[in-house]
């Protein structure tokens, strides 16, 4: 008697395989956690891969403008799941109000500075990292951290054009830049797990998942996802999470995972791009290409 693997089983097995390959290959490995549904599914897949444990540190880039519920959710589950959580932030930009919400930068430049640049310098260890102390529940500043050489990211190929060209293991050069034309080949589940000094590798275990797959998996596994994704009575919910000033909710009455899935399958969102609520995409001329080459996730 043979059981048939469902599509979710196949996706899960592939993601688990990639996570284990990353863990085996990179001593300085980190997983980015944006608190959103994709990277939370990724976190869950890590628990699958490592039998309930998360032996990889998680990094959250906190711009300081995140929707407040996101930070609450992050801290609750970091403590509950015993996560080794590191937070990165551009304290200087926030101090000098060099931001879009303060009226001093365009959306795109703000995004580049508070997210891309912060991520780059926090990954490299040049900027301080704030690590969660599980005894006190407080974040403690750490300086002089070692650079991370393997960075696990929850990007999906169906999100927009440039992401569909990523490999599962995509090398980035010494400037964190992505040379799309010169990517090494990747075949038969053999990945580029080696890297030259000064470079790092981005790892994409969710590359083959679609937005619908993510929600179906959340439902199947009963993953506690942040409730910003659900309508709480005002006919609005978030479809994609980001900074409060640049991320708008969409009109929807989906109140739970099942209703979100129905909406994606056959309802109003079955043909509308997921990131339609994100303002910085529009400023970039329709693609995330510029941001992404420079290190955006």
């Amino acid at each position, binding site marked *: 008697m043979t059981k048939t693997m469902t599509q979710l089983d196949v996706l899960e097995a592939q993601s688990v395989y990639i996570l284990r390959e990353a863990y085996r290959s990179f001593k300085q490995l980190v997983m980015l956690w944006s608190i959103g549904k994709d990277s939370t599914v990724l976190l869950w897949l890590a628990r*699958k891969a490592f*039998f309930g444990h998360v*032996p990889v540190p998680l990094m959250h880039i906190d711009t300081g403008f995140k929707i407040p519920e996101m930070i609450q959710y992050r801290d609750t589950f970091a403590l509950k799941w015993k996560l080794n959580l590191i937070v990165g932030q551009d304290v200087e930009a926030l101090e000098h109000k060099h931001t879009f919400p303060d009226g001093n930068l365009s959306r795109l430049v703000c995004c580049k500075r508070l997210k891309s640049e912060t991520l780059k310098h926090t990954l490299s260890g040049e900027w301080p990292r704030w690590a969660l102390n599980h005894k006190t529940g407080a974040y403690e500043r750490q300086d002089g951290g070692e650079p991370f050489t393997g960075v696990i990211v929850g990007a999906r190929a169906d999100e927009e054009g440039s992401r569909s060209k990523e490999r599962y293991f995509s*090398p980035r050069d010494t400037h964190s830049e992505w040379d*799309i034309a010169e990517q*090494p080949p990747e075949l*038969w589940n*053999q990945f580029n797990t080696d890297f030259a000094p000064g470079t790092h590798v981005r790892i994409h275990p969710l590359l083959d998942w679609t937005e619908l797959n993510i929600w179906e998996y959340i439902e199947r596994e009963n993953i506690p996802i942040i409730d910003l994704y659900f309508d709480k009575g005002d006919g609005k919910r978030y479809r994609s999470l980001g900074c409060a000033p640049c991320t708008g909710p969409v009109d929807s009455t989906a109140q739970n995972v099942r209703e979100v899935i129905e909406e994606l399958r056959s309802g109003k969102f079955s043909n509308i791009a997921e990131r339609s609520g994100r303002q910085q995409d529009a400023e970039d001329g329709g*693609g995330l290409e510029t941001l992404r080459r420079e290190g955006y996730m």
Partner: protein
Amino acid sequence: MSTVLESQMIKNGTQGAQKMNIVIIGHVDHGKSTLIGRLLADTQSLPKGKLEAVKAQCAYHARPFEYAFLLDALKDEQSQGITIDSARCFFKSKKREYILIDAPGHIEFLKNMISGAARAEAAVLVIDAHEGVQENSRRHGYLLGMLGIRQAIVCVNKMDLAGYDRRVFERIRSEFSAFLTQTGIAPRHFIPISARDGFNVAAAGDAMPWYDGPTVLEALDGFEKEPPRVGQPLRLPIQDIYKFTEQGDNRRIFAGRIETGTLRVGDAVVFYPSGKRSTIASIEAFNAPPVHEATAGEAVGVTLREQVYVRPGELLVRTDESPPATARQLRVNLFWMGREPMIFNKRYLLKLGTARAPVWLRQIRTVLDASELTTERNRRHIQRHDVAECVLETLKPIAFDPTAEIAQTGRFVLIDNYHIAGGGVVLQAESNAADRLSEHVQQREKSWRRSRITPLMRSYRTGQRSTLVVIAGPPQTGKAALAQALEEKLFAAGRQVYYLGLDNSLLGMDEDISRNYLRDEYLRRLGEVAHVFTDAGMILITTVSDLDSYELQVLRTLNHPGENLIIGVGAHGLAAADVDLKLNVPLNPSEAAGQVANLLTERHYLPEYYL
């Protein structure tokens, strides 16, 4: 696609249905992107407004609209007008969901085409009716066969430019069929299409009434999902071994993905190449009900009844099924994508299954021009885009299956300068070629210039016979303390002795072996240095953590004709016959040094009396 059917499929749920990966390949400009754009548009698979937006953009730039623009998500790609990387797009038919992989046709981007095609279960080859079969049409066809893709259709595109002429179509069909037959691919259908005008893509249209075969969409739906490979023997390459003791978890879990076959709790299993045996105690999982059986495709973790020490990269199989092959020399078919050619006497890294090992090119049998299927002999290197049948050699035996028997454990990639530079399939174990290290040592001995001072003269002067003393055993068992004590003891007795106290951690030896490949290089240097010391008449003492029999053989070979004395400390893991003296832990360094000194005396390295 009809919305009624679509919603029906959706009610049934997509969780049970499987996606199918299809790669679209062909020579540059033969219209792959246009075909995909057409498929997406004609099946209403595009996001709302996308078609209109691209059309508007074209109008704004005063360019005629092309369906290919829908895919060219990247800006520089639009300006060059060619696909540089394999882009993926998602699309649904009545039957199932597809991931369409748009593989670039330009020769410069062959490695991208390979990456795209290696993920596919079936292929669509596109040929321009006007230009006919081109170099890359053939090369791609050949590579598909090598990648293991057996299901394919051929679209003869741009029939509009050929006046929808049946004779043009038939000519291309007979030419390309003849070529593909040699590569092992038998296309299901040849379909005459016009991607630009949409004929025979999602609907037949009326341009080619002489054609009565399926449309592209119908042909895609006709591809079959490869059944799970449960009928073959179990192959579970071990990816890693976990023990999360710090988290209070004492399970020792062997993790990996089952490539073929079935695994059950209670199965007697054996690891290759080590040959270690045990029994499956449990199949572990997080947030899932316990299971007693796992099959091909599943990423699993198992615990064992009898604990064995194996490293990641071994192949776990059942004792009641056919074993894999193990060999140090593999005859392979490989294609090379590296910028630098593949050459002899250079160390590459091999990844096969979960095994990772240093590898050398030993012999080039033939180099094939994949576009013409002509072969060349007597080549001294393998160039970019060459396909070669050659022999590779590793330091230690590697477990694999010939590709004809089990494809999943018969394929590999090669790393050069940090990146995957080649890929291929193993044809068989090669047994009669000369061993690389022995050949090197022979060469070395031949070219080593010596004075008239013989080993005997040295022995007479120093009052000792030279040897390499290797202290082997697990890390942190006091090997270094013993080595130091032994050096001091012999030195005090007036012997010519040296302790080579190279810190193993300097060379990554203390790290998990799987995280680096430096160990073989360290051992090679150690072997060469040992040879100099023993040739000079010295007693050289060194320590190596977790030395295995193959590594010991490397040291012995390189130290030849120098002699060796092997001290096994604690659970040293070597075969009993390899070890000259076994010492138990905890060690008392000076006592143990006394035991080793006595053995040196017994074996006449340090004779008490000499004439």
